[in-house]
């Protein structure tokens, strides 16, 4: 590994993923998180958005409105649809030229294709699917004491080190690990969608735009994207939902989800599901909450007939209020819940609908 001069690396970059000219939600979340980290780092550190695509100039304004100090764009016909080869080449070249200290990607199906490829080309460390980031040890201690069982005695709140501390679940959520990349730059991570907070929109905010020249040729791209198809069904918007009503194996069958839907309609919520319900074919995979589904943090999460396996919990445990309806008072979901209602969901939900309004 070549030795890197750390002083050359400055600023936080966010790969602001867009599809068909629309920024992904996680891009705003990363700008919010990047903004906070840049202020934690101090010394004039800026948060910068990197937008790659075709005719994407208009998105810069959106990035400024959500916290970006500076926007880099790479605009080219060959970048209209995502290809691993095309995007890896332009992103790694931009990183080599401008040397950001930190690069954050959304842990989307595209971010998790691009980021490892870039990390391998840059010989930089990459931490996958992070759910918490810090740069000041003091803030990390605060986080750890509040949310984890970590013994923080060995950590010094005055520690001047400002390595990125990247925390993520491992072993299916049974364990959390904080990862550092002390010897390589930039420090890179993919961040799970739905866990970081976006900033309040600042209408009319502006900043510097840097247009990076694209040096891409057709031969650089070894795959041909023949078609991009959007799912016919409306996308379930679990991430933005304020209330989610989820059903699990306890719902028994596809008809049972009618009961879940009724409650969701009554409370103005969106329907979620456990993997067991999805695997049984009672509801579509797009509704799945959890490690291999969507991570959510609504104001209210109502878990009906869900036992609360760790893989489900990691996707919903940061919800503000958790309500569990379950026959088994001793299952993990009933222990996790703020409000545990023991009973048969088919008897309870109709009553609950009657009471709610």
């Amino acid at each position, binding site marked *: 590994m070549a030795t890197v001069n750390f002083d050359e690396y400055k600023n936080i970059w966010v790969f602001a993923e867009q599809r068909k000219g629309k920024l992904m939600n996680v891009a705003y979340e990363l700008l919010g998180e990047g903004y906070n980290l840049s202020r934690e780092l101090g010394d004039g550190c800026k948060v910068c958005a990197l937008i790659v695509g075709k005719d994407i100039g208009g998105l810069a304004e959106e990035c400024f409105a959500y916290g970006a100090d500076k926007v880099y764009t790479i605009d080219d016909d060959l970048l209209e649809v995502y290809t691993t080869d095309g995007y890896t080449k332009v992103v790694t070249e931009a990183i080599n030229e401008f040397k950001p200290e930190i690069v954050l990607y959304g842990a989307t199906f595209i971010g998790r294709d691009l980021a490892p490829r870039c990390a391998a080309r840059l010989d930089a460390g990459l931490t996958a699917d992070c759910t918490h980031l810090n740069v000041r040890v003091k803030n990390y201690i605060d986080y750890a004491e509040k949310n984890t*069982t970590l013994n923080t005695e060995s950590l010094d709140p005055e520690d001047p080190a400002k390595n990125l501390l990247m925390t993520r679940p491992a072993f299916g959520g049974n364990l959390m690990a904080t990862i550092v990349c002390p010897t390589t730059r930039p420090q890179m991570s993919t961040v799970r969608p739905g866990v970081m907070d976006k900033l309040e929109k600042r209408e009319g905010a502006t900043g510097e735009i840097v247009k990076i020249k694209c040096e891409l040729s057709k031969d650089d791209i070894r795959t041909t994207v023949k078609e991009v198809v959007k799912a016919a069904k409306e996308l379930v918007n679990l991430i933005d939902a304020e209330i989610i009503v989820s059903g699990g194996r306890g719902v028994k069958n596809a008809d049972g989800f009618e009961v879940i839907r009724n409650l969701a309609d009554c409370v103005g919520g969106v329907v979620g599901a456990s993997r067991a319900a999805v695997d049984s074919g009672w509801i579509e995979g797009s509704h799945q909450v959890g490690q291999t589904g969507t991570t959510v943090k609504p104001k209210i999460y109502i878990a009906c007939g869900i036992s609360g396996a760790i893989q489900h919990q990691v996707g919903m445990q940061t919800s503000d209020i958790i309500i569990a309806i379950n026959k088994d008072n001793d299952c993990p979901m009933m222990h996790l819940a703020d409000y545990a209602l023991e009973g048969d969901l088919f008897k309870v939900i109709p009553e609950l609908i009657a009471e709610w309004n």
Partner: protein
Amino acid sequence: MKIIVCAKQVPDTNEIKINPETGTLMRDGVPSILNPDDANALEMALEIKDNNPDTEITVISMGPPQAKVMLEECIALGADKCILISDRAVGGSDTWATSNAIAAAVRKLDGFDLIIAGRQAIDGDTAQVGPQTAEKLDIPQVTYVKEYKFSDDMKSVEVKRALEDGYQIIDVKLPCMLTAIKELNTPRYMTVDGIMRACDPNLEIKVWGAADIEVDLDKVGLKASPTNVFRSFTPKPKGKGVYIEGDTPKEKSQNLVTGLKAKHII
């Protein structure tokens, strides 16, 4: 066609329990399994072989000596050859270092047309080793593959790649790297013949050390890995919630709604 499958032995994370006193992982007695997505990767290779009997499937794994058990399972399922990269010098590798070792082992084989990996391993869930290995070998990749169709001359493959909100149809020439997701197929079971084959003493699982794969020692192992574990811990158990009292579903529902209103949650 020559196919390489990357497979990892992982602890069954469904079976892992936390010691409530120490807050640590209890790995004792936790079964080790073939990583689920890798079973889909192997199944795809076996399907190709079903249709093209001259196909040769080599499974590569990196891990401790006991990973041999998983490789025997791969043979029983129908793989032709297995290579286990196992050496103290490669222990503690992160995804960057792991991909250096796997790429080095691949270079030692006499060529390949296709590499199939799983999307992610359930112990670390990183989904990085496949793409990083492809980069080290300078071949194109398509991740999250859920369907595939080869061209008539078997020189390229058209795949359906999943996205959160749909999919892409991508055409890619061989050699390339594909990563498999569970929607790709349903892995087959072992047959009696297969199990007999795995017991054949001539069918050896090759164990290669760092010297065998001729990898630079500053590219593998714990020390060379750019990512380090700073701390590890378990999430804090939440304080006990409220148990909703009541004799009937109706009473419980009333008490819940009253409680939520009193706290201004609704």
